[in-house]
């Protein structure tokens, strides 16, 4: 009973936070215009989202953004397996609605501001990057940290959340934690990480002679640690925290990588500057309202409920 009440309450707060945004009055207007825009776009359709800057981008949309507005649908790709950023809520039967977490709420917010429908696709991390670079999807929101390599391969948005507590660190076995007091203690150790991540760069740049093993998912890397195949897993603090809570034999080390760019970004296909500009305006709006923090709090509460 309590659980159901709580879920209902949370659903309500999430909806409320969405409605409080630009979604309430602007979205229907925008979508009504969007449906008529096919014929009216030449004469300059008027979008009224409540954000003047966004309106002017939408009114002069080119490229992919114009396609999105004309189709009335934006596609988003994500590896929905990183609570609380993105995870599948097993109690929700509708597939699209079951993708929850703070990143997924951001995707819904972006779609509602643009006045279009959202379609989320859930694939593994390698396929997230492939899918957005290839242009199969309009955007990727998947807890993606800013890196220079990514900025070269894709168009990245402004940072939508910076989490000071989300340092880049290690998970180590509980009985070994005192062996590691500084970063150089990890030199020459067997370190596991998820392929193509920030952790991969950090391990290879900041550690001397690490014996690395790469995994396609961070869960597999942790599994390798538990079975003694490696000495530590390089991981983001927020991702590692619930893992050590569920697995009592593991702890997070006090040693951190040297890293200060803990900002998450939305990725689009290279060259889609209009789409990224529109997303940036929406992100600025989200930051000024502090919505992401609310989404995270709600998501963390839900993860606690779902855990065993």
């Amino acid at each position: 009973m309590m659980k159901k009440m709580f879920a209902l309450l949370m659903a309500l707060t999430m909806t409320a936070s969405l409605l409080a945004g630009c979604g309430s009055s602007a979205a229907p207007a925008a979508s009504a215009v969007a449906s008529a825009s096919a014929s009216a776009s030449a004469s300059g359709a008027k979008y009224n989202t409540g954000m003047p800057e966004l309106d002017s981008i939408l009114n002069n949309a080119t490229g992919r953004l114009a396609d999105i507005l004309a189709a009335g649908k934006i596609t988003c790709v994500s590896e929905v397996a990183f609570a609380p950023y993105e995870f599948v809520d097993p109690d929700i039967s509708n597939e699209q609605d079951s993708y929850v977490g703070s990143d997924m709420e951001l995707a819904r917010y972006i779609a509602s501001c643009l006045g279009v429908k959202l379609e989320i696709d859930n694939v593994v991390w390698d396929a997230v990057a492939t899918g957005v670079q290839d242009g199969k999807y309009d955007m990727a929101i998947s807890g993606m940290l800013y890196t220079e390599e990514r900025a070269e391969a894709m168009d990245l948005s402004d940072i939508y959340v910076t989490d000071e507590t989300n340092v880049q660190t290690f998970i180590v076995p509980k009985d070994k934690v005192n062996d590691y007091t500084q970063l150089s203690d990890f030199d020459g150790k067997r370190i596991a990480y998820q392929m193509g991540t920030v952790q991969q760069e950090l391990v290879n740049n900041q550690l001397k002679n690490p014996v690395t093993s790469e995994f396609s998912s961070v869960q597999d890397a942790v599994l390798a640690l538990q079975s003694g195949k490696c000495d530590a897993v390089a991981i983001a603090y927020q991702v590692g925290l619930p893992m050590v809570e569920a697995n009592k034999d593991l702890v997070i080390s006090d040693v951190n990588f040297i890293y200060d760019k803990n900002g998450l970004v939305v990725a689009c296909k290279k060259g889609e500057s209009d789409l990224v500009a529109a997303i940036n305006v929406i992100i600025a709006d989200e930051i000024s309202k502090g919505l992401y923090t609310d989404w995270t709090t709600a998501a963390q509460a839900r993860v606690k409920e779902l855990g065993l």
Partner: protein
Amino acid sequence: MNFFFNIKKILARYGMKYVQGTVITLFLSLISVLLGSFLGLFISLARMSKRKWISRIASVYIELLRGTPMLLQLYLFWILLPKIPGLSNIGNLTCVCIALVINSSAYMAEVFRAGIQAVDSGQREAAVSLGMKERDIMRKVIFPQALRNILPAMGNEFIVMIKETSLASTFMAGEIMTTMKQIQSITYLALESLTIAGIIYLILTLGISKLLSILERRLNANG
């Protein structure tokens, strides 16, 4: 034991999710074997065709699909299918299904060819000397006998596909490994969710191979 306790808790809370995953795994493997057999039959006939170029095309098709990894094929279909005009809205599950069917068709084509060619050549000669038409020889003489060689191999392909469909979890197709990933990502209990998935796969493959051996015995008894 914490491990078994955790497994019990996962099953109590998320058991239904594993059941759904099992249904999708069975659905995917059944579809790929059935449609793959249908497609494979025609490819095997093309492969055995007397016209050189038809046989050549069929053998290139078979070698391409059998010579490259399934995961690579899944990725290619996933990227390329939506680029075909008119298919831009194709879903991930459909892409995965098509890739599985086409992959399976190459293996089934070889199964059919082996089955057909294993029928004693005297059977064909006898049919020819009775004045039967080429089409009837295939349909009424060769194929019914070949079927007895083919059915067990078809069952094996089904078992192989049950395991191969796990690769579809790359695109979260909803089968058992996808379920496992989802449960693992919210419970953070990797070994436990993997163990449950492993047990389900074992039950499926062992159960089906048992069924097949019963079927095979009955086929032989009637032969």
